[in-house]
């Protein structure tokens, strides 16, 4: 469904962050920032930017729409916060209502992966061995069956498609953090349409395509390592190594839904961020612990045990 009314913006092929657009509803000036969407602070009208693609600023090809509402995200992050409150000072002060739904720029990567591997494969066999033992004070000879492993070298090739790899295109949310809330349900994939993102924050890519491709290849290598581990024959294996090449790569810009709660406990310290998958509500946040709270927690437990012991001792006294 196409949007129906234009607002105005300077005719740039790729508007730089900080570009000012004029609200199509009330005419107010809105700073675009690092996003391709905006909500006018005066009339609450949501705008979505359309612009020509640039090499490192492509237009989204696909989008995964939000299915987790703000109420559910607040509830799920709240549960996580209550769990973490004991150990993390930052989150006990955080206001979850400040959580924001962001369409995160990412890339969807696939390729043909071909690798050459080598490994030591262990094949078990059993042997009967005799041994001596002492029974009733006498030395006797007995037999027993023992399992041993015959190790052999195996080298070969493995070819498969690497598919469904999602890597961030945002400097704001590193790939390591995105991985914590993956996977996304790609069955809900839709071709990008401004109607899917209207009213939501839509971040522009801030990582270059070559940086994202590199990250995707690292993920493909990790996926291939997991596949090769499952591919090995024998009863066990060790020293698995492989070299991998990729061909026929495709990498398509995609918007993925993420709920983000950023907390800055101290103006001098970097923000601490909790993220939740906008499709599955999977929540992740840094599990740093507050040393003071941990010590307090241990002291409380010790004190509780001591009180119980004291009560028990006094209870038995005549």
């Amino acid at each position: 469904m196409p949007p129906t009314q234009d607002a105005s913006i300077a005719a740039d092929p790729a508007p730089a962050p900080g570009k000012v657009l004029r609200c199509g509803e009330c005419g107010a000036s809105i700073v675009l920032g690092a996003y391709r969407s905006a909500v006018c602070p005066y009339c609450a009208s949501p705008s979505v930017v359309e612009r020509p693609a640039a090499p490192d600023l492509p237009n989204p090809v696909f989008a995964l729409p939000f299915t987790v509402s703000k109420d559910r995200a607040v509830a799920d992050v709240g549960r996580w916060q209550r769990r973490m409150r004991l150990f993390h000072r930052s989150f006990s002060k955080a206001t979850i209502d400040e959580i924001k739904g962001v369409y995160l720029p990412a890339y969807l990567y696939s390729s043909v992966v071909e690798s050459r591997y080598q490994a030591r494969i262990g094949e078990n066999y059993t042997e009967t061995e005799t041994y001596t033992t002492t029974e009733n004070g006498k030395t006797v000879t007995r037999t027993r069956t023992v399992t041993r492993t015959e190790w052999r070298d195996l080298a070969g090739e493995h070819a498969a498609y690497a598919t469904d790899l999602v890597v961030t295109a945002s400097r704001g949310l590193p790939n390591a953090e995105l991985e914590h809330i993956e996977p996304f349900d790609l069955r809900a994939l839709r071709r990008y349409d401004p109607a899917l993102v209207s009213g939501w924050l839509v971040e522009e890519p801030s990582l270059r395509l070559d940086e994202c491709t590199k990250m995707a290849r690292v993920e493909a290598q990790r996926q291939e390592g997991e596949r090769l581990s499952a591919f090995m024959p024998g009863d066990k294996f060790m020293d698995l190594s492989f070299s991998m090449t990729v061909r026929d790569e495709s990498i398509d810009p995609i918007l993925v839904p993420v709920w983000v709660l950023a907390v800055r406990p101290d103006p001098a310290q970097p923000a601490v961020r909790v993220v939740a998958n906008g499709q599955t509500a999977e929540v992740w946040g840094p599990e740093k612990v507050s040393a003071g709270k941990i010590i307090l927690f241990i002291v409380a437990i010790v004190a509780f045990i001591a009180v119980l012991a004291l009560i028990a001792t006094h209870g038995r006294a005549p």
Partner: protein
Amino acid sequence: MNCVRCQTPLEESDLRCCICAHAVPAAVSGAPVTAARARILRCRECAAAISYDAERKAPRCAFCGAVMEVEEPVDPVERAELILPFAIDRASATASLRSWMRSLGWFRPGDLSSAATVEKLEPLHWAAWIFDADARVTWTADSDADSGRSDWAPHGGSARFTWRNVVVSASRGLSGKETVKLTPRYLIDGARTAAEAAGEDSARETFDTQRSAARAKIVAAIEAIAEEQLTQGSIPGRRFRNVHAAVLLERLTTRRYLLPAWVLAYRYKGSLYRSVVHGQDSSLVLGEAPVSWAKILLLVGVIAAVVVGVVALLAH
């Protein structure tokens, strides 16, 4: 249109190739965007600006509550495209069943063919996918070839397979064993479209599977077929275990078929038995049949008597 990477034909509304996940290019519509512009999505009912609603999974107007339709991911239920006609009629199917009963051997009741009464004889079109594909298969396995102290030795390699007209059953009425035996005897070239065979009287199975689930089933079946084929010449040795196949599929073409079979139920001395007669080859009959316990007891008695006789002779 085919996928540019694996050459698998793409279905209408596919966003990505179902085999290799390569993105399908969008059809170009409208004039290209030459300059940046901001747009406001408006409600078609009251013209208010509207936002996407995560709960409704659609853009929704906060003022009048109108929900606007957006393009949904398409995952239709599979429907048959082609139907194979019956080549044998009801009378031939019944005759085949009688003939099959007579051929079952000495352990079956002697009067099975004459005393059995056919209670039900239904023409059935059962659902199946028939695929063509090429594949590069890399594999590992343990086999007895080159084994040492262990019974097993590890092997690895690669092979190229070409499959044409391979049947994967989608039937709920016939068992896996039955469909495996029925499939080699079908003459696939004689298929007609569902529209051409609209007037034929038969019970027709439905696929009851969405496209995405069907593709997953077909790929799983292809992997199982590849593992089976690898043990028939590619992997050295005669005994195998831990067969792992990585199948790099290319040019996977799948058609949805309905295949003919006569399903019969017959009664013999109060008990009901089920049989299947191939819909195009009357010489292939599958099914259950009673055994003659009297004959089995007679045989056991004769063997016991012979053993006793031999022991007695040896004792004397």
